[in-house]
């Protein structure tokens, strides 16, 4: 498998890669093209316009940034997503610490239970979650949403972090403990810095949970416009009558750009953070 490939194999590999890249990138490319076109003209496109930019204007971006409440929505999303990230990191790291570093009665059962309980479809728990939030007086507030998101990420994050911590030899911490560190202290000073890839993945998932979700955000914060998050806000621009594709696409690109950059920057971490941690054989 690590032989130097022959000419024909190389051509085949490139052919597959190029086809797959077209498949992967064309929908995104299409969105970029649509963002540079005015109004609802997606319907009256000529064939060439679907593949190459025949016309280009920044009008949609201008409207989205300065006339629609997109910036407010992004600010809301940023608030919700970043608090979710921090909360999810803190809570799941501490849980993963307990699950990875202590042997106690019911530990394995708890791990299984966490995973199995997760199979209750989130969408269907939504009514109950909304009821609890109403009872707590947090319905229609960003804090309620943050609570729901943070707990939604806990199972995955805890599992992933616990798996990663398991691969860090405890000897290192024990050495620190002999030198006079407490268990928690040595964990923070030694294991946490070594677990950076897993922390990055957990942070990313926390952020994406807040940034990209649609269903929870639209049900738990139905109104007013100024409190909406970016994705449901964007979606609310579409009426039953028409979909303003130009605004939609431009807004979408503005919303996705930060996460795209973060994703691409973290992709090296993702490979090790996911495979070593969450899915250990």
């Amino acid at each position, binding site marked *: 498998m690590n032989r130097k*490939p022959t000419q024909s194999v190389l051509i085949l590999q490139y052919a597959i890669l190029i086809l797959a890249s077209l498949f*992967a990138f064309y929908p995104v490319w299409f969105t970029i093209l649509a963002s540079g076109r005015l109004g609802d003209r997606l319907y009256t496109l000529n064939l060439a316009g*679907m593949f190459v930019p025949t016309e280009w204007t920044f009008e949609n971006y201008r409207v989205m940034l300065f006339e629609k409440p997109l910036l407010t929505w992004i600010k809301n999303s940023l608030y919700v997503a970043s608090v979710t990230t921090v909360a999810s990191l803190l809570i799941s790291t501490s849980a993963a610490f307990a699950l990875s570093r202590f042997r106690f009665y019911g530990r394995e059962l708890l791990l299984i239970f966490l995973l199995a309980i997760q199979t209750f479809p989130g969408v*269907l728990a939504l009514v*109950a979650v909304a009821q609890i939030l109403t009872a707590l007086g947090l319905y229609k507030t960003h804090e309620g949403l943050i609570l729901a998101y943070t707990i939604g990420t806990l199972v995955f994050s805890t599992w992933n972090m616990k798996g990663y911590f398991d691969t860090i030899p405890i000897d290192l911490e024990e050495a620190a*403990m002999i030198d006079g560190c407490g268990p928690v202290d040595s964990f923070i000073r030694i294991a946490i810095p070594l677990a950076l890839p897993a922390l990055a993945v957990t942070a990313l998932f926390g952020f994406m949970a807040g940034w990209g979700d649609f269903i929870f955000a639209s049900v738990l914060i139905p109104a007013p416009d100024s409190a909406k998050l970016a994705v449901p806000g964007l979606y609310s621009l579409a009426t039953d009558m028409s979909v303003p594709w130009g605004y939609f696409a431009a807004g979408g690109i503005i919303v996705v750009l930060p996460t795209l950059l973060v*994703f691409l920057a973290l992709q090296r971490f993702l490979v090790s953070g*996911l495979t070593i941690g969450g899915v250990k*054989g």
Partner: protein
Amino acid sequence: MIGWSGRRKALIILLFLGPTLVGILLFNVFPILLSSYTSLTNRNKFHPNPDCNLVVTSVLDPVCWPIFRANATKGLAEPYRTQTPLLKNYIDVLGQLFTREALLAFLLIFICFIPLIVAGYLERYYDRQMTRRVSSTTIWASALVVALALAYALNVREAYQTLTNTGDFFIVVFRTVIFVVLRVSLSFSLGLTLALILNSPYLPGRTFFRLILFVPWATSSLAILMALVWQFFFREQGVINQVLNFFGIHGMAWLNNPTSAFAIVVLADTWFSYPFFMIVILGALQSVPVDVYEAAEMDGARWWTQLTQITLPLVRPAILPATVLTSITAFQMFGTAYAITEGGPVQSAGKPGATDFVIVYAFKQIFNSQNYGRATAFAVILFIFLFAATLYALRLTRITKGAYE
């Protein structure tokens, strides 16, 4: 392991696990309890409010909790009550799935799968022998032939018809299972192919390709918008039809045809999900030692043999849990189908559409017709099924074990 014991240790563990436990109890366990209870009641848009004088209701429904009563919405409508008989919602959901004809149909379909199960056991038996007398291709091919012959002889098509007539439940679950199988195997094979290619060190520009191929996953925060883009490709005036027009072919209304609408949802969801497999497999491939291949090369093993005998078995432990967990999430897929087809196309009124997968169906029951009782009964049945599947998967993959156990 760490220098604590007794009460101190218990306290520390509780302290660190506490927030997680409270959160899970409030937002995961409690909704399950409440949903299970709701599934026994006639709660719907005509009976939306609780009757706080009933003991169970006053304990389970948050609106009734004394500290929260101030925030409760008060309605004038009749409160909801438990159904008589108690399991009425379940009976409604399952329909006539447990009548004699339906059970007989199940039995017939099961019989057709017996040759494949036998083949699986034979295969495992031969794997343990030193020499193989029968090749694995022969075993599977003959099992498949026998299975198809049985299916023809037992008239499976008719059995399937009987089952679809038993109500929504069977058809919805059946379609979802088909969807999961197609979507997971498609994105798995695509992810595997790409990971194998990208793992080759003799490929200029592979970082570039890795970035491009990674893009669909990075757009997951806009899943709903990208799903709309996919929908646009297949509209009557969409990209596909315009390209076909250019070649003089008159395209069809893709989204109105049950089969093509189903295929489109599978395709779009594959687009969203293959990068995950690619990343996981890529990570697993990096831990496969090179010298194994060198040894295989010495023995004259060809590419295909190396792939099936070395690479796949070695990455299996890392990939299996990911595959199982993805299958479970695929079973719960909601956004893509809802954005592209809203569960349609519906062929006859009152019947579930071709892409009404379980969660889409249940979501519509709750939010469009406010039929909480029935929808939660549906959810509870699904949950029992998925819970069992997860436990089985955990046993299969042994991922609860730590690295040093």
